[in-house]
């Protein structure tokens, strides 16, 4: 009883002349972050839900299908079990017919991590109000980002075209590559999830490139310099790192595990 009344007294102390001024009473920033940055964080959180839904679906579907139990070197494509990723993703542009498990995806991962580094460098340059440095690092980030999307385009076209040998399907015909109804690598859902997960991620990278292009133009025009801060670069940076973060998970759950 006494505790309750004490709390009430504390609250009743506030008046028009002396308003409450606690952390959550308004008029200040409890998270000490600007509106724009906070909203970017909450958007990214909601985007994380979407990607988590995709990856959870992948996990569910993978466990719903049988796993290949034989020896790794005896693996052949079949719709009867889920394929081993390093048997599917083993090609490299310009090196036709060679078995290079996960080499290309390793390169793509490195490119994306590197683009994240150049992005932090751009944000760091923005804190110092160094216009030339911001421009330089934004251009590098754009270059690496565009390279990543191009790599993904190659990966997709190779996945769709398939291998020279193809796989004998249940109806006895040889099928090469993949579409949403049929694929030579394994169960139908394997290709579907590949298209949806890497496609959704690729779309995010593309959106990031659009935002980076805007940032580069605005930096060059001196918009941020006149504004007195490069917070927009920081917010786009948060988005860009998130895209890298998603790739870290896609990489593990789709290509490694």
């Amino acid at each position, binding site marked *: 009883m006494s505790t309750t009344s004490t709390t009430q007294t504390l609250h009743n102390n506030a008046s028009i002349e002396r308003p409450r001024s606690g952390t959550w009473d308004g008029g200040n920033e409890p998270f000490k972050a600007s509106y724009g940055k906070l909203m970017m964080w909450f958007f990214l959180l909601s985007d994380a839900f979407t990607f988590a839904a995709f990856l*959870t679906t992948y996990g*569910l579907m993978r*466990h719903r299908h049988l796993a290949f139990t034989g020896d790794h070197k005896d693996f052949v494509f079949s719709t009867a079990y889920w394929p081993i990723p*390093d048997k599917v993703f083993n090609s490299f542009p310009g090196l036709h017919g060679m078995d290079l498990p996960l080499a290309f995806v390793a390169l793509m991962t490195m490119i994306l991590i590197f683009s994240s580094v150049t992005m932090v460098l751009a944000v*760091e340059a923005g804190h110092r109000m160094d216009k030339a440095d911001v421009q330089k690092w934004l251009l590098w980030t754009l270059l690496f980002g565009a390279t990543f999307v191009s790599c993904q385009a190659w990966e997709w076209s190779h996945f769709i075209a398939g291998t020279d040998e193809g796989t004998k399907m249940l109806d006895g015909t040889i099928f090469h590559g993949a579409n949403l109804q049929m694929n030579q690598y394994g169960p139908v859902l394997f290709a579907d999830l590949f298209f949806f997960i890497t496609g959704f991620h690729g779309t995010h990278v593309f959106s990031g490139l659009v935002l980076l292009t805007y940032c580069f133009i605005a930096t060059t025009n001196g918009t941020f310099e006149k504004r007195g801060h490069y917070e927009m670069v920081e917010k786009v940076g948060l988005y860009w790192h998130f895209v890298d973060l998603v790739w*870290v998970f896609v990489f593990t759950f789709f290509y490694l595990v």
Partner: protein
Amino acid sequence: MAHHATDHTQPTGEIQKPVTGWIWKTFFVLVGITALEFAVTFIMDPSTLRNSILIVLTIFKAFFIVAEFMHLKHETKGLIWTILVPMALLVWLMVALITEGSAIGEAIYNAFK
């Protein structure tokens, strides 16, 4: 007036020298963990242990990206928890539905036996 991070910005005039040591350190950590992931994938045979190691390494990588590159480590505690708690619930969702997937698979294969 828009509020923004004024603690780093400074009036126009002299431009400070860049401080990038921590960025490159984080970069080498990320590259190192990625290399380790590849090593684990090719050295070990597929098993629950291998997958667990890979997932733990992935979470390490995610920590460095979010804490350092996205600067979350240096934000207020309230913001850190606001982001982390929903993510923890997603891990629960994932574990639950993967278990569910095994159950559905078993039910289907047993039905056609």
